[in-house]
């Protein structure tokens, strides 16, 4: 799925990384616990979260993720946007709750894991 399709499905506002909207992602995960993201996630392209602090961006960067979606109308700080721009990560925010956002993505074919058993 292209990142621009995620934006459409979640009716999301782009915050940075517009140049990567055509980038393909193959799976996603959802968590507010970054340690769980670091533990269980493998080759996920997208992180859906309601957590706001710079470690969200660092975690995504460590995991080579392409896109972070902030749900529940949460907006990242300027510091987080700067960090994401440096890492080449797309940020967007949606008014949907996490469950609803994940439901839309899953129904549209974006699954939880690209072949592993967790996530």
């Amino acid at each position, binding site marked *: 799925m292209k990142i621009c399709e995620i934006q459409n499905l979640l009716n999301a506002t782009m915050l940075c990384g517009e140049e990567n909207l055509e980038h393909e992602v193959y799976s996603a995960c959802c968590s*507010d*616990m*970054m*340690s*769980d993201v*670091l*533990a269980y996630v493998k080759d996920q392209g997208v992180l859906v979260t309601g*957590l706001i*602090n*710079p*470690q*969200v961006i*660092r*975690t995504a*960067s*460590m*995991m*080579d993720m392409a896109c972070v979606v902030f749900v529940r109308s949460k907006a990242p700080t300027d*510091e987080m946007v700067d960090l994401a721009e440096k890492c080449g990560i797309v940020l967007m925010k949606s008014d949907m709750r996490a469950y609803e956002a994940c439901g839309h993505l899953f129904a549209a074919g974006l699954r939880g894991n690209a072949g592993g058993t967790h996530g």
Partner: protein
Amino acid sequence: MGEPLKFHFEVDGENFSSAGEASVMVKKKLRQLGFSPEIMRRVSIAMYEGEINMVIHADGGTADVTVSDTEIEIVLKDKGPGIADVERAMQEGYSTACDNIRALGFGAGMGLPNMKKYSDYLHIDSEVGVGTTVTMRINLN
């Protein structure tokens, strides 16, 4: 490669926002050196969890990374409270972090298990009231 490459970092314990900066730097260096995404990810995640631990529990410390032909070694040293029961600390889900740390997305009791998972060798040398030294190695062959 010849002589091993050494990198030294001071990890600031005062500032949660900056935690992980050393790991980001290391990932960047490894990319420049041409390592595979898998090796970069394992090294940077293992080090990142260690860095977060030093900031949460030990008021910061130092990180030393050595890249040789056969392995990448990460040594994280702090003068924090030490770990009373290392075996228990290694259990998934066990954490002594308080609620304000959980609110930041950490303290799920996955830090040390993740460090073990992503490294080939993990040794924890800790003395209560003195500090902790964590040594991790990732094989390159």
